């Protein structure tokens, strides 16, 4: 079984599609990192509040 030959449009737009794909992956990683950072900040705030109350 062989793969069908790649359409000319895909060859022409390869750089653009690759760039967009990488940008979307980077955005996903960034949003994950942001979620973690915000979660850590919230947890430390809550811990601080409990310590202050005690």
């Amino acid at each position: 079984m062989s793969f069908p030959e790649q359409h000319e449009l895909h060859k022409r737009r390869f750089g653009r599609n690759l760039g967009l794909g990488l940008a979307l992956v980077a955005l996903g990683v960034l949003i994950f990192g942001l979620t973690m950072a915000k979660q850590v900040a919230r947890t430390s705030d809550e811990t601080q509040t409990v310590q202050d109350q005690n």
Partner: protein
Amino acid sequence: MSDASLNTASIETGEAGFGDYFALLKPRVMSLVVFTALVGLLAAPVAVHPIIGFASILFIAIGGGASGALNMWWDADIDRIMKRTRNRPIPAGIISEGEAFAFGITLAVMAVIMLALAANPVAAGLLAFTIFFYVVIYSMWLKRWTPQNIVIGGAAGAFPPMIGWAVATGGVSMESLLMFALIFMWTPPHFWALCLFMKSDYKEAGVPMLTVTHGRRATRVHILVYTLFLIPVAIGIGFTGIGGPVYLAIAVLLNALFLKGAWDIWRRDEIQAETDGYRTEKRVFTLSLFYLFGHFTAILLQSMLAPYGLGGW
């Protein structure tokens, strides 16, 4: 990197590449936005988590880039006329006006929402206002209407350090307003120096720059007068919470050099300038870039020295 850079492959195939879309974001302007916003963020008296800080600067950069794309969409007609801009992706026929508009508006909305989520609504609101100011107030309204276009429109480029400061503090303060004022007052002499040696571009495009409406002598006078207004702002920052002895020393030196440059421009006439190919005007334009970079580097340096007891007053 030039904001008019293009992929040679795009010209051969007629297909816009990733680099062409990136060129729409005016990367050179974006680098100034990133740097000043970063200084605003780091000079603020509140620490920010590195990931939140990085993401915020990225969204500010994307927002700034989006306003660049929307500016290119609106100004495509005059960009085709001016030598400096005719290789941009839209006038070069690589990206259509509609595509540039869609690209710009999508990135603008995304950047504002993401900054609100990553940092706070004040920073996001300032970013949204910056994009609105650059695209609607400056590009659509002032640029083709009044020779004061660059004076009022310069505010758009002055907001990034305020946004950076707001990311950290969640508000606006005297220090962030002074950083705004520094860029706001610096923009007119910086741009008018460029206008003096980009002789025919604005006239051919029908943009009412000061050189076109009031003449070149008046522009030289304006450069000197605005420099005199700029100096107290630049030196004054040295006596605030973000200033200090290091900043003050650098600011005094840079302002002395810039004043000398503005004085030299004022003293010359067109015959002298034509004779040496606008050497002084070009030198002052380059100096103005170092001037702004130097002041913000000094603010950054001052804040980095603070933990070692060498901070402000």
